Protein backbone atom coordinates (compact mmCIF):
# COMPACT_ATOMS: atom_id res chain seq x y z
CA UNK A 1 0.00 0.00 0.00
CA UNK A 2 2.81 2.44 0.83
CA UNK A 3 4.26 1.65 -2.59
CA UNK A 4 1.10 2.69 -4.42
CA UNK A 5 0.63 5.74 -2.21
CA UNK A 6 4.20 6.75 -3.05
CA UNK A 7 3.42 6.40 -6.76
CA UNK A 8 0.27 8.53 -6.48
CA UNK A 9 2.12 11.19 -4.48
CA UNK A 10 4.99 11.32 -6.97
CA UNK A 11 2.74 11.65 -10.00
CA UNK A 12 0.63 14.39 -8.42
CA UNK A 13 3.75 16.25 -7.34
CA UNK A 14 5.24 16.08 -10.82
CA UNK A 15 1.98 17.17 -12.44
CA UNK A 16 1.89 20.27 -10.25
CA UNK A 17 5.50 21.26 -10.94
CA UNK A 18 6.86 23.16 -13.92
CA UNK A 19 6.31 21.16 -17.09
CA UNK A 20 3.64 19.02 -15.44
CA UNK A 21 0.28 18.64 -17.13
CA UNK A 22 -2.16 19.70 -14.41
CA UNK A 23 -2.49 23.36 -15.39
CA UNK A 24 -2.42 22.74 -19.14
CA UNK A 25 -5.69 20.81 -18.97
CA UNK A 26 -7.50 23.50 -16.98
CA UNK A 27 -6.18 26.28 -19.22
CA UNK A 28 -7.32 24.40 -22.31
CA UNK A 29 -10.73 23.81 -20.74
CA UNK A 30 -10.97 27.52 -19.90
CA UNK A 31 -10.04 28.64 -23.39
CA UNK A 32 -12.47 26.27 -25.13
CA UNK A 33 -15.37 27.34 -22.95
CA UNK A 34 -14.48 31.04 -23.00
CA UNK A 35 -14.23 31.07 -26.80
CA UNK A 36 -17.58 29.37 -27.24
CA UNK A 37 -19.81 32.42 -26.47
CA UNK A 38 -17.81 34.42 -29.01
CA UNK A 39 -18.37 31.77 -31.65
CA UNK A 40 -22.04 31.12 -30.90
CA UNK A 41 -22.96 34.76 -30.34
CA UNK A 42 -24.61 36.54 -27.41
CA UNK A 43 -27.84 34.55 -27.51
CA UNK A 44 -28.25 33.70 -23.84
CA UNK A 45 -30.98 31.11 -24.37
CA UNK A 46 -28.93 29.24 -26.92
CA UNK A 47 -25.83 29.38 -24.72
CA UNK A 48 -27.71 28.02 -21.72
CA UNK A 49 -29.08 25.23 -23.88
CA UNK A 50 -25.64 24.34 -25.27
CA UNK A 51 -23.93 24.90 -21.91
CA UNK A 52 -23.75 21.33 -20.57
CA UNK A 53 -22.62 19.95 -23.93
CA UNK A 54 -19.88 22.59 -24.24
CA UNK A 55 -18.65 21.96 -20.71
CA UNK A 56 -18.61 18.22 -21.27
CA UNK A 57 -16.81 18.46 -24.60
CA UNK A 58 -14.25 20.82 -23.10
CA UNK A 59 -13.65 18.46 -20.19
CA UNK A 60 -13.35 15.45 -22.50
CA UNK A 61 -10.77 17.10 -24.75
CA UNK A 62 -8.88 18.58 -21.81
CA UNK A 63 -8.58 15.20 -20.12
CA UNK A 64 -7.28 13.66 -23.36
CA UNK A 65 -4.71 16.40 -23.74
CA UNK A 66 -2.33 15.23 -21.04
CA UNK A 67 -3.27 11.56 -21.04
CA UNK A 68 -0.70 10.52 -23.66
CA UNK A 69 2.09 11.36 -21.20
CA UNK A 70 0.62 9.01 -18.57
CA UNK A 71 2.99 6.14 -19.37
CA UNK A 72 5.21 7.69 -22.03
CA UNK A 73 7.25 9.82 -19.62
CA UNK A 74 7.94 6.77 -17.47
CA UNK A 75 8.77 4.71 -20.52
CA UNK A 76 11.26 7.24 -21.85
CA UNK A 77 13.31 7.53 -18.67
CA UNK A 78 13.22 3.83 -17.78
CA UNK A 79 10.96 4.17 -14.74
CA UNK A 80 8.39 1.92 -16.37
CA UNK A 81 10.89 -0.98 -16.40
CA UNK A 82 11.29 -0.65 -12.65
CA UNK A 83 7.55 -0.36 -12.13
CA UNK A 84 7.01 -3.56 -14.12
CA UNK A 85 9.71 -5.33 -12.07
CA UNK A 86 8.45 -4.09 -8.70
CA UNK A 87 6.63 -6.13 -6.11
CA UNK A 88 3.33 -4.30 -6.57
CA UNK A 89 1.08 -5.82 -9.24
CA UNK A 90 1.25 -3.85 -12.48
CA UNK A 91 -2.56 -3.57 -12.55
CA UNK A 92 -2.60 -1.73 -9.23
CA UNK A 93 0.30 0.47 -10.30
CA UNK A 94 -1.69 1.42 -13.43
CA UNK A 95 -4.73 2.19 -11.30
CA UNK A 96 -2.57 4.34 -9.01
CA UNK A 97 -1.20 6.28 -11.96
CA UNK A 98 -4.68 6.85 -13.36
CA UNK A 99 -5.93 7.98 -9.96
CA UNK A 100 -3.06 10.46 -9.68
CA UNK A 101 -3.78 11.72 -13.19
CA UNK A 102 -7.43 12.22 -12.36
CA UNK A 103 -6.64 14.07 -9.13
CA UNK A 104 -4.14 16.35 -10.86
CA UNK A 105 -5.92 16.88 -14.18
CA UNK A 106 -9.58 15.91 -13.66
CA UNK A 107 -10.46 17.50 -10.31
CA UNK A 108 -9.32 21.01 -11.34
CA UNK A 109 -11.76 20.84 -14.28
CA UNK A 110 -14.62 20.16 -11.91
CA UNK A 111 -13.52 22.99 -9.64
CA UNK A 112 -13.40 25.36 -12.62
CA UNK A 113 -16.88 24.39 -13.85
CA UNK A 114 -18.92 26.78 -11.63
CA UNK A 115 -16.85 29.73 -12.85
CA UNK A 116 -17.35 28.74 -16.47
CA UNK A 117 -21.06 28.20 -15.91
CA UNK A 118 -21.36 31.98 -15.51
CA UNK A 119 -20.08 32.49 -19.05
CA UNK A 120 -22.75 30.15 -20.42
CA UNK A 121 -25.58 31.70 -18.42
CA UNK A 122 -26.17 28.60 -16.32
CA UNK A 123 -27.76 29.14 -12.93
CA UNK A 124 -26.37 27.71 -9.72
CA UNK A 125 -28.46 24.55 -9.81
CA UNK A 126 -27.46 23.79 -13.40
CA UNK A 127 -23.76 24.33 -12.83
CA UNK A 128 -23.78 22.14 -9.77
CA UNK A 129 -25.60 19.47 -11.77
CA UNK A 130 -22.96 19.66 -14.52
CA UNK A 131 -20.16 19.62 -11.93
CA UNK A 132 -21.73 16.58 -10.28
CA UNK A 133 -21.98 14.70 -13.58
CA UNK A 134 -18.37 15.61 -14.35
CA UNK A 135 -17.34 14.30 -10.93
CA UNK A 136 -19.07 11.01 -11.68
CA UNK A 137 -18.00 10.77 -15.33
CA UNK A 138 -14.44 12.06 -15.66
CA UNK A 139 -12.92 9.07 -13.80
CA UNK A 140 -14.33 6.90 -16.59
CA UNK A 141 -12.59 9.10 -19.17
CA UNK A 142 -9.26 8.72 -17.37
CA UNK A 143 -9.52 5.01 -16.74
CA UNK A 144 -10.57 4.12 -20.29
CA UNK A 145 -8.11 6.65 -21.73
CA UNK A 146 -5.38 4.86 -19.81
CA UNK A 147 -5.86 1.82 -22.08
CA UNK A 148 -5.07 3.96 -25.12
CA UNK A 149 -2.12 5.55 -23.33
CA UNK A 150 -0.71 2.10 -22.59
CA UNK A 151 -1.13 1.00 -26.21
CA UNK A 152 0.53 4.13 -27.57
CA UNK A 153 3.38 4.10 -25.05
CA UNK A 154 6.14 3.05 -27.41
CA UNK A 155 5.14 5.45 -30.19
CA UNK A 156 6.91 8.77 -30.37
CA UNK A 157 3.85 10.70 -31.55
CA UNK A 158 1.23 8.67 -29.76
CA UNK A 159 -1.04 11.58 -28.88
CA UNK A 160 -3.13 11.50 -32.03
CA UNK A 161 -3.39 7.71 -32.05
CA UNK A 162 -4.49 7.93 -28.44
CA UNK A 163 -7.31 10.31 -29.38
CA UNK A 164 -8.44 8.04 -32.21
CA UNK A 165 -8.41 5.00 -29.92
CA UNK A 166 -10.01 6.59 -26.92
CA UNK A 167 -12.65 8.95 -28.28
CA UNK A 168 -15.00 6.17 -29.46
CA UNK A 169 -14.78 4.59 -26.00
CA UNK A 170 -15.76 7.85 -24.38
CA UNK A 171 -18.93 8.36 -26.42
CA UNK A 172 -21.21 6.59 -23.88
CA UNK A 173 -19.78 8.73 -21.08
CA UNK A 174 -20.43 11.85 -23.14
CA UNK A 175 -24.01 10.83 -23.99
CA UNK A 176 -25.04 10.05 -20.44
CA UNK A 177 -23.08 12.92 -18.93
CA UNK A 178 -24.83 15.49 -21.11
CA UNK A 179 -28.18 13.72 -20.76
CA UNK A 180 -27.96 13.83 -16.98
CA UNK A 181 -26.95 17.49 -16.96
CA UNK A 182 -29.74 18.47 -19.32
CA UNK A 183 -32.28 16.50 -17.36
CA UNK A 184 -31.30 18.42 -14.27
CA UNK A 185 -31.58 21.76 -16.05
CA UNK A 186 -34.65 21.53 -18.23
CA UNK A 187 -36.41 18.27 -17.46
CA UNK A 188 -38.69 16.53 -18.37
CA UNK A 189 -36.62 13.37 -18.14
CA UNK A 190 -35.34 12.33 -14.74
CA UNK A 191 -31.81 13.06 -13.59
CA UNK A 192 -31.43 9.75 -11.78
CA UNK A 193 -31.31 7.22 -14.59
CA UNK A 194 -28.59 8.74 -16.82
CA UNK A 195 -26.61 9.75 -13.74
CA UNK A 196 -26.62 6.21 -12.40
CA UNK A 197 -25.56 4.86 -15.78
CA UNK A 198 -22.72 7.38 -15.74
CA UNK A 199 -21.63 6.11 -12.32
CA UNK A 200 -21.85 2.55 -13.62
CA UNK A 201 -19.63 3.42 -16.59
CA UNK A 202 -17.02 4.79 -14.18
CA UNK A 203 -17.18 1.67 -12.02
CA UNK A 204 -16.80 -0.58 -15.07
CA UNK A 205 -13.79 1.40 -16.23
CA UNK A 206 -12.17 1.04 -12.78
CA UNK A 207 -12.23 -2.71 -13.28
CA UNK A 208 -11.41 -3.02 -16.97
CA UNK A 209 -9.00 -0.11 -17.40
CA UNK A 210 -6.15 -1.23 -15.12
CA UNK A 211 -6.21 -4.82 -16.40
CA UNK A 212 -6.28 -3.82 -20.06
CA UNK A 213 -3.57 -1.21 -19.56
CA UNK A 214 -1.31 -3.62 -17.65
CA UNK A 215 -1.78 -6.28 -20.33
CA UNK A 216 -0.86 -3.93 -23.14
CA UNK A 217 2.13 -2.57 -21.22
CA UNK A 218 3.44 -6.11 -20.74
CA UNK A 219 2.86 -6.80 -24.41
CA UNK A 220 4.68 -3.67 -25.46
CA UNK A 221 7.86 -4.29 -23.45
CA UNK A 222 11.00 -4.41 -25.53
Amino acid at each position, binding site marked *: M*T*ALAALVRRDIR*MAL*RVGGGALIGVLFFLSVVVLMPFAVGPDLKLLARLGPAILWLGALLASLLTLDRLFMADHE*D*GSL*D*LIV*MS*RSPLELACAAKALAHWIAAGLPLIVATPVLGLLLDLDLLSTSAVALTLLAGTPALTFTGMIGAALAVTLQRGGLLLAVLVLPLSIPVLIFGVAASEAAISGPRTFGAPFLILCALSLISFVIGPFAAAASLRQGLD
Partner: protein
Amino acid sequence: MRLSGRGVKCVRGGREVFSNLDFEVSSGEVLAVTGHNGSGKTSLLRLIAGLLIPARGTILLEKGEAELTLAEQAHYLGHRDALKPALSVGENIAFWRDFLGGETSDAGDSLAAVGLDHAADLPAAYLSAGQRRRLSLARLLAVGRPVWLLDEPAAALDAAGQELFSRLMHGHLAQGGLIVAATHGPLGIEARELRMGGPS
Protein backbone atom coordinates in the same frame (compact mmCIF):
# COMPACT_ATOMS: atom_id res chain seq x y z
CA MET B 1 21.75 -18.43 -4.06
CA ARG B 2 22.49 -19.25 -7.66
CA LEU B 3 21.35 -17.62 -10.88
CA SER B 4 21.59 -19.75 -13.97
CA GLY B 5 20.46 -19.80 -17.56
CA ARG B 6 20.21 -22.88 -19.78
CA GLY B 7 19.97 -22.76 -23.56
CA VAL B 8 18.63 -19.24 -23.56
CA LYS B 9 17.62 -17.84 -26.91
CA CYS B 10 16.71 -14.23 -27.48
CA VAL B 11 14.75 -12.91 -30.47
CA ARG B 12 14.08 -9.20 -30.85
CA GLY B 13 12.12 -7.69 -33.69
CA GLY B 14 12.16 -11.02 -35.55
CA ARG B 15 15.97 -11.17 -35.48
CA GLU B 16 17.89 -13.68 -33.43
CA VAL B 17 20.22 -11.86 -31.04
CA PHE B 18 21.80 -14.93 -29.46
CA SER B 19 20.88 -18.54 -28.88
CA ASN B 20 21.91 -21.51 -26.81
CA LEU B 21 23.48 -19.35 -24.14
CA ASP B 22 24.42 -20.91 -20.80
CA PHE B 23 25.55 -18.97 -17.79
CA GLU B 24 25.77 -19.39 -14.07
CA VAL B 25 26.59 -17.10 -11.17
CA SER B 26 26.42 -17.80 -7.44
CA SER B 27 26.26 -15.69 -4.29
CA GLY B 28 29.33 -13.55 -3.86
CA GLU B 29 30.25 -13.68 -7.53
CA VAL B 30 30.26 -11.20 -10.38
CA LEU B 31 29.47 -12.16 -13.95
CA ALA B 32 30.90 -9.66 -16.41
CA VAL B 33 29.03 -9.81 -19.71
CA THR B 34 31.28 -8.57 -22.49
CA GLY B 35 31.06 -8.42 -26.25
CA HIS B 36 30.89 -5.95 -29.10
CA ASN B 37 28.02 -3.54 -29.67
CA GLY B 38 24.85 -5.36 -30.62
CA SER B 39 25.98 -8.72 -29.27
CA GLY B 40 23.04 -8.81 -26.86
CA LYS B 41 24.48 -7.72 -23.53
CA THR B 42 21.56 -5.47 -22.68
CA SER B 43 19.08 -8.03 -24.04
CA LEU B 44 20.52 -10.64 -21.69
CA LEU B 45 20.13 -8.34 -18.69
CA ARG B 46 16.56 -7.53 -19.70
CA LEU B 47 15.79 -11.24 -20.07
CA ILE B 48 17.05 -11.87 -16.55
CA ALA B 49 15.04 -8.88 -15.30
CA GLY B 50 11.90 -10.36 -16.84
CA LEU B 51 11.49 -7.38 -19.17
CA LEU B 52 11.91 -9.67 -22.18
CA ILE B 53 10.68 -13.21 -22.56
CA PRO B 54 13.24 -15.80 -23.72
CA ALA B 55 12.26 -17.44 -27.02
CA ARG B 56 13.70 -20.69 -25.68
CA GLY B 57 15.48 -21.85 -22.54
CA THR B 58 15.06 -21.01 -18.89
CA ILE B 59 16.51 -18.58 -16.41
CA LEU B 60 16.30 -19.63 -12.78
CA LEU B 61 17.17 -18.22 -9.40
CA GLU B 62 17.75 -21.04 -6.93
CA LYS B 63 17.57 -20.63 -3.16
CA GLY B 64 16.09 -17.18 -3.42
CA GLU B 65 12.91 -16.21 -1.61
CA ALA B 66 10.34 -18.72 -2.78
CA GLU B 67 7.43 -16.27 -2.71
CA LEU B 68 9.04 -13.76 -5.03
CA THR B 69 9.88 -13.89 -8.72
CA LEU B 70 13.40 -13.29 -9.99
CA ALA B 71 12.46 -9.79 -11.17
CA GLU B 72 11.12 -8.91 -7.73
CA GLN B 73 14.46 -9.84 -6.16
CA ALA B 74 16.54 -7.91 -8.67
CA HIS B 75 17.73 -4.39 -9.19
CA TYR B 76 18.01 -3.31 -12.82
CA LEU B 77 20.29 -0.37 -13.58
CA GLY B 78 19.84 0.39 -17.25
CA HIS B 79 21.02 3.03 -19.71
CA ARG B 80 18.03 5.10 -18.78
CA ASP B 81 18.34 6.19 -15.21
CA ALA B 82 14.67 6.40 -14.12
CA LEU B 83 15.15 9.85 -12.61
CA LYS B 84 12.56 12.59 -12.79
CA PRO B 85 14.10 15.99 -13.56
CA ALA B 86 11.20 17.84 -11.92
CA LEU B 87 11.79 16.15 -8.56
CA SER B 88 14.67 16.88 -6.23
CA VAL B 89 17.47 14.38 -5.67
CA GLY B 90 16.02 13.51 -2.25
CA GLU B 91 12.48 13.07 -3.62
CA ASN B 92 13.72 10.81 -6.41
CA ILE B 93 15.49 8.44 -4.08
CA ALA B 94 12.72 8.55 -1.47
CA PHE B 95 10.15 7.62 -4.11
CA TRP B 96 12.05 4.56 -5.30
CA ARG B 97 12.70 3.51 -1.73
CA ASP B 98 8.99 3.69 -0.86
CA PHE B 99 7.79 2.24 -4.15
CA LEU B 100 10.17 -0.70 -4.47
CA GLY B 101 9.80 -1.59 -0.80
CA GLY B 102 11.17 -4.68 0.87
CA GLU B 103 14.26 -4.13 2.97
CA THR B 104 14.98 -0.46 2.84
CA SER B 105 17.51 1.79 4.46
CA ASP B 106 17.41 5.51 5.08
CA ALA B 107 17.32 7.59 1.88
CA GLY B 108 19.67 10.21 3.36
CA ASP B 109 22.26 7.57 4.25
CA SER B 110 22.19 6.15 0.72
CA LEU B 111 22.72 9.60 -0.72
CA ALA B 112 25.62 10.19 1.66
CA ALA B 113 27.14 6.86 0.61
CA VAL B 114 27.34 7.99 -3.01
CA GLY B 115 28.44 11.51 -2.11
CA LEU B 116 25.26 13.32 -3.07
CA ASP B 117 23.94 14.32 0.35
CA HIS B 118 24.87 17.97 -0.25
CA ALA B 119 22.60 18.03 -3.32
CA ALA B 120 19.50 16.45 -1.75
CA ASP B 121 17.32 19.52 -2.36
CA LEU B 122 18.56 20.19 -5.88
CA PRO B 123 16.20 19.30 -8.76
CA ALA B 124 17.59 16.26 -10.57
CA ALA B 125 17.49 18.26 -13.82
CA TYR B 126 20.66 20.07 -12.72
CA LEU B 127 22.75 16.95 -12.11
CA SER B 128 25.66 16.06 -14.37
CA ALA B 129 25.80 12.67 -16.10
CA GLY B 130 28.15 11.31 -13.43
CA GLN B 131 25.97 12.60 -10.62
CA ARG B 132 22.90 11.01 -12.21
CA ARG B 133 24.76 7.71 -12.27
CA ARG B 134 25.66 8.12 -8.61
CA LEU B 135 22.01 8.82 -7.81
CA SER B 136 21.03 5.61 -9.63
CA LEU B 137 23.60 3.74 -7.55
CA ALA B 138 22.01 5.21 -4.41
CA ARG B 139 18.84 3.35 -5.39
CA LEU B 140 20.74 0.06 -5.16
CA LEU B 141 21.70 0.94 -1.61
CA ALA B 142 18.36 2.38 -0.47
CA VAL B 143 16.50 -0.83 -1.35
CA GLY B 144 18.00 -4.24 -0.62
CA ARG B 145 17.85 -6.75 -3.49
CA PRO B 146 20.14 -9.79 -3.71
CA VAL B 147 20.53 -9.68 -7.52
CA TRP B 148 22.04 -6.64 -9.21
CA LEU B 149 21.72 -6.36 -12.98
CA LEU B 150 23.94 -3.52 -14.13
CA ASP B 151 24.19 -2.18 -17.66
CA GLU B 152 27.43 -0.24 -18.23
CA PRO B 153 27.44 0.74 -14.54
CA ALA B 154 30.73 2.63 -14.58
CA ALA B 155 29.89 4.81 -17.58
CA ALA B 156 30.20 8.55 -16.84
CA LEU B 157 31.72 7.93 -13.39
CA ASP B 158 34.97 9.73 -12.51
CA ALA B 159 37.93 7.97 -10.88
CA ALA B 160 36.60 8.55 -7.36
CA GLY B 161 33.19 7.38 -8.52
CA GLN B 162 34.59 4.16 -9.95
CA GLU B 163 36.43 3.46 -6.73
CA LEU B 164 33.22 4.13 -4.79
CA PHE B 165 31.32 1.84 -7.14
CA SER B 166 33.76 -1.02 -6.69
CA ARG B 167 33.47 -0.55 -2.91
CA LEU B 168 29.68 -0.79 -3.20
CA MET B 169 29.98 -3.98 -5.24
CA HIS B 170 32.36 -5.53 -2.70
CA GLY B 171 29.90 -4.66 0.07
CA HIS B 172 27.03 -6.23 -1.84
CA LEU B 173 28.97 -9.44 -2.53
CA ALA B 174 30.01 -9.66 1.12
CA GLN B 175 26.32 -9.67 2.08
CA GLY B 176 25.74 -12.68 -0.15
CA GLY B 177 24.49 -10.84 -3.20
CA LEU B 178 25.36 -11.53 -6.81
CA ILE B 179 25.99 -9.20 -9.72
CA VAL B 180 25.57 -9.50 -13.48
CA ALA B 181 27.15 -6.54 -15.23
CA ALA B 182 27.36 -5.72 -18.93
CA THR B 183 30.57 -3.85 -19.50
CA HIS B 184 33.19 -2.73 -21.99
CA GLY B 185 35.85 -1.58 -19.57
CA PRO B 186 37.27 -3.13 -16.40
CA LEU B 187 34.75 -3.36 -13.58
CA GLY B 188 37.29 -2.83 -10.81
CA ILE B 189 36.41 -6.15 -9.24
CA GLU B 190 37.29 -9.76 -9.84
CA ALA B 191 34.72 -11.24 -12.18
CA ARG B 192 33.91 -14.25 -14.28
CA GLU B 193 33.56 -13.33 -17.92
CA LEU B 194 30.69 -14.26 -20.23
CA ARG B 195 31.71 -13.37 -23.75
CA MET B 196 28.81 -12.80 -26.11
CA GLY B 197 29.26 -13.80 -29.73
CA GLY B 198 26.71 -12.86 -32.31
CA PRO B 199 27.02 -11.20 -35.71
CA SER B 200 30.11 -9.07 -36.13
